[in-house]
């Protein structure tokens, strides 16, 4: 059984690994960026530390060696190479594998682990051998430097005071001090002054603080790393000083040390004062752990990001769902209140009702906002995907992301992952040509896949474009004819042709690779996007490449709808696909010889009579309305009695009982407490097509 702590650890480690991956990919682009190197190191260090703490010793050991390598990298002693990044990425995968499999250790691929480890150790060994040589050269010099290393020796003043309750977290400060001691030559002074007298002492409290003078070549980061796990549980001040330069001379250092111990009675103030004196040019007293920035930090304002991580808490999404549900209820109750208030004409009640209305709306906004996440969390995964794919396929592809800060409902982001993987695979596999072909075509050798997100009204547009070969309309058409999807003589618009690639089993790839070409994929993409009430659009040109645009609703809980009425019942049509509303009078019905088509500005548009479809028998009014919607590139009309207007609706599921009802995607509660059904017009249209085909078949049999 995994207990809660382990679960939390696994969750955290998974996050860290994701960060690690992002940082590594960033590092590949700027191998010299010390900030990023520090990020990688920090991720590794935290993974090592916490896995050790939770008993994942194998991971801790594994990570230790990698960390060693990156320690050298950080110190500028080993250079970042593509191989090292590859290796570390593989190691990251291995760690995540270990995380999952650690319950069942036997399945772990030990060989791979060993292989990776050996590679890392080789790097270290390689470095050491090189370093030894340089050391020899250095030591050959007459000067008796005992601290022979690439980094200059510096003296640090450290003041370390753990909080009283430090023992509760299971930390033993003495171990930290010992660790510190290993870094270099040190003078350590413990201050026992705040220990209570015996009669009132609480043995579980820590009353000791330390003052340390440390002479090391490891740099300030190494010191900070010692305290990395208890940063928020102690007062830590680190100052670098060259005032004590004379101490660099080893003899005087020892002298000073002796002097200190001889005088034994050191004023607490003495070192603290010194410390304060040198603090002015020093890094912040408290180092925030939240340096583990998100991948998108580059695009979004840095400060923003940090404050976000600093003040965030983890809440299970169930709780958020419940909150959104409750707010949804509140919205409907509030609508009723407004109605009643309007009837009573009592100014006091009106005032209160308006107040409630205002509050409800802001509550609703913020409740929905809590579910919003920046889409960048998914984008970062694709960098790795593109990298691996391009390597596998022998192509050169770079990925550019834009608008990673665009926010979307969490559920949508989660469900967006798979479709995006499919689309991006297609881009890299089919879209981007091999470097040779690209050069011939006069394009740069490196292909570009661009992933961008932007908000437009109540929708988010996710655009995936490549600068590859584009789609060949004739090939698609020929293939579709062959598959019997269309007739050879059919006249199709460009968008209709491109829509064909989303048919099930459709693939024009001449070769089936293990990346794509089996014809599953794009239809899955389409279905997934449609289930999110999104729309896919494809634009392609054989010179500039393909652009796939996904138009997605901001949230699933609330939809923008067009409220219509048939007889006594209200229905909601999703507004996103609706293009216009036109009138349908009896004359037009006779004009079209009772066929369900109407002439709109010279174009013939078929329509579905919802009244007939739903078996509503009441007398139809003389003038009806047709709502024209764009369904898969075809305009289709839906006949209703009356169009009532736009309506923001809180989507409710119809539950178990009605789960298989066709053409209805849910229900919503109106201001007056009645229920309006939300229509799934895609479903209604496809059912109608099938229905009519059946009718025709039956007729022909007769």
């Amino acid at each position: 059984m995994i207990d809660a702590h382990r679960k939390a650890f696994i969750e955290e480690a998974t996050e860290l690994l994701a960060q690690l991956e992002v940082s590594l990919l960033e590092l590949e682009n700027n191998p010299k960026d010390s900030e990023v190197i520090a990020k990688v190191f920090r991720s590794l260090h935290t993974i090592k530390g916490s896995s050790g703490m939770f008993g994942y010793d194998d991971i801790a050991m594994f990570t230790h060696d990698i960390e060693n390598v990156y320690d050298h990298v950080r110190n500028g002693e080993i250079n970042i190479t593509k191989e090292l990044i590859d290796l570390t990425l593989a190691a990251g995968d291995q760690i995540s594998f270990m995380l999952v499999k650690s319950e069942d250790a036997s399945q772990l691929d030990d060989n791979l682990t060993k292989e990776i480890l050996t590679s890392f150790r080789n790097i270290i060994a390689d470095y050491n051998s090189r370093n030894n040589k340089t050391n020899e050269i250095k030591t050959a010099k007459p000067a008796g430097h005992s601290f022979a290393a690439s980094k200059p020796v510096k003296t640090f003043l450290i003041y370390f005071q753990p909080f009283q309750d430090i023992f509760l977290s299971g930390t033993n400060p003495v171990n930290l001090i010992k660790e510190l001691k290993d870094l270099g030559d040190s003078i350590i002074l413990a201050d026992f002054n705040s220990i209570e007298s015996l009669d009132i002492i609480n043995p579980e409290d820590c009353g000791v603080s330390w003052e340390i003078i440390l002479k090391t070549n490891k740099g300030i980061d190494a010191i900070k790393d010692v305290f990395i796990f208890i940063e928020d549980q102690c007062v830590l001040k680190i100052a670098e000083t060259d005032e004590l330069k004379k101490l660099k001379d080893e003899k005087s250092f020892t002298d000073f040390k002796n002097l200190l111990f001889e005088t034994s009675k050191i004023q607490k103030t003495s070192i603290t004062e010194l410390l304060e004196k040198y603090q002015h040019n020093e890094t912040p007293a408290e180092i925030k752990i939240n340096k583990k920035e998100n991948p998108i930090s580059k695009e979004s304002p840095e400060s923003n990001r940090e404050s976000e991580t600093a003040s965030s808490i983890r809440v299970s999404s169930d709780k958020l769902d419940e909150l959104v549900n409750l707010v949804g209820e509140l919205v409907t109750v509030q609508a009723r209140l407004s109605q009643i208030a309007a009837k009573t004409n009592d100014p006091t009640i009106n005032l209160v009702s308006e107040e409630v209305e205002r509050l409800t709306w802001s509550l609703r906004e913020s409740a929905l906002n809590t579910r919003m996440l920046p889409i960048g969390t998914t984008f970062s995964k694709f960098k790795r995907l593109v990298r691996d794919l391009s390597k596998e396929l022998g192509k050169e592809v770079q990925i550019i992301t834009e608008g990673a800060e665009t926010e979307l409902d969490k559920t949508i982001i989660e469900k967006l992952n798979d479709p995006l993987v499919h689309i991006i695979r297609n881009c890299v596999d089919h879209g981007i040509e091999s470097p040779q072909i690209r050069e011939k075509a006069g394009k740069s050798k490196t292909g570009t896949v661009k992933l961008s997100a932007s908000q437009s009204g109540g929708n988010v547009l996710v655009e995936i474009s490549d600068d590859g070969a584009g789609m060949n309309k004739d090939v698609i058409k020929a293939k579709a004819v062959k598959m019997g999807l269309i007739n050879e003589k059919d006249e199709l618009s460009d968008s209709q042709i491109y829509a064909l690639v989303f048919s099930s089993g459709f693939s024009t790839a001449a070769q089936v690779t293990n990346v794509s070409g089996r014809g599953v994929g794009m239809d899955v993409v389409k279905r997934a996007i449609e289930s999110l009430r999104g729309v896919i659009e494809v634009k392609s040109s054989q010179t500039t490449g393909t652009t796939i645009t996904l138009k997605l609703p901001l949230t699933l809980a609330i939809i923008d709808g067009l409220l219509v009425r048939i007889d006594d019942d209200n229905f909601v049509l999703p507004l996103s696909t609706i293009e216009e509303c036109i009138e349908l009078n009896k004359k037009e019905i006779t004009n079209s010889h009772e066929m369900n088509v109407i002439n709109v500005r010279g174009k013939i548009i078929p329509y579905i009579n919802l009244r007939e479809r739903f078996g509503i028998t009441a007398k139809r009014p003389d003038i009806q309305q047709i709502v024209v919607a764009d369904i898969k590139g075809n305009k289709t009309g839906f006949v209703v009695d009356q169009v009532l207007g736009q309506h923001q609706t809180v989507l409710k599921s119809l539950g178990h009982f009605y789960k298989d009802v066709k053409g209805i995607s849910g229900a919503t509660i109106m201001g007056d407490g009645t229920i309006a059904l939300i229509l799934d017009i895609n479903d209604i249209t496809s059912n109608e097509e099938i229905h009519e085909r059946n009718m025709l078949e039956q007729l022909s049999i007769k």
Partner: protein
Amino acid sequence: MDNSVLNETKQYLTFKLTDEVFGVDVAQVREILDYVKITKVPQTPEFMKGVINLRGSVVPVVDMNLKFGMSSTEKTVNTCIVVVEVKIGDETTVIGALVDSVQEVFEIESKNIEPAPKIGTRLKTEFIKGMGKHNETFIIILDIDKVFSSEELNLVQNTVNAKTNEETLIS
């Protein structure tokens, strides 16, 4: 059913469908509502009356008269919707049962409930937990979980799909 359950005294809510009195375990009854406007869901069988708004939740309503093969429930002042909690599989679902009138809550010892007769009730025997006698009338105690069980729901879905059945064969 083990003995301890058999000897328990349980409370049952009784309601009337046409002329017969039925009972359900009060533990499964959530509330009783006056008749409200029911929104019909198109293309569903007749006994599924539609959905109502129960304080912000969408709750399906079933016409019990039609469900048990009697003629459809006429709306009167006494018409009620009994909201019950039903276990379907592992999930608890809330369903409204449209009945002609609600009678009372009465107590009966489990041992006084007789097993359902195999014939004569016009109902599927698995719907009936037993027969109780109260004030000289027989009360049919329903196993409400079974009435709305998933098999029953499947039947519902089959009728829903009846119209589109051919299409699934074709496609």
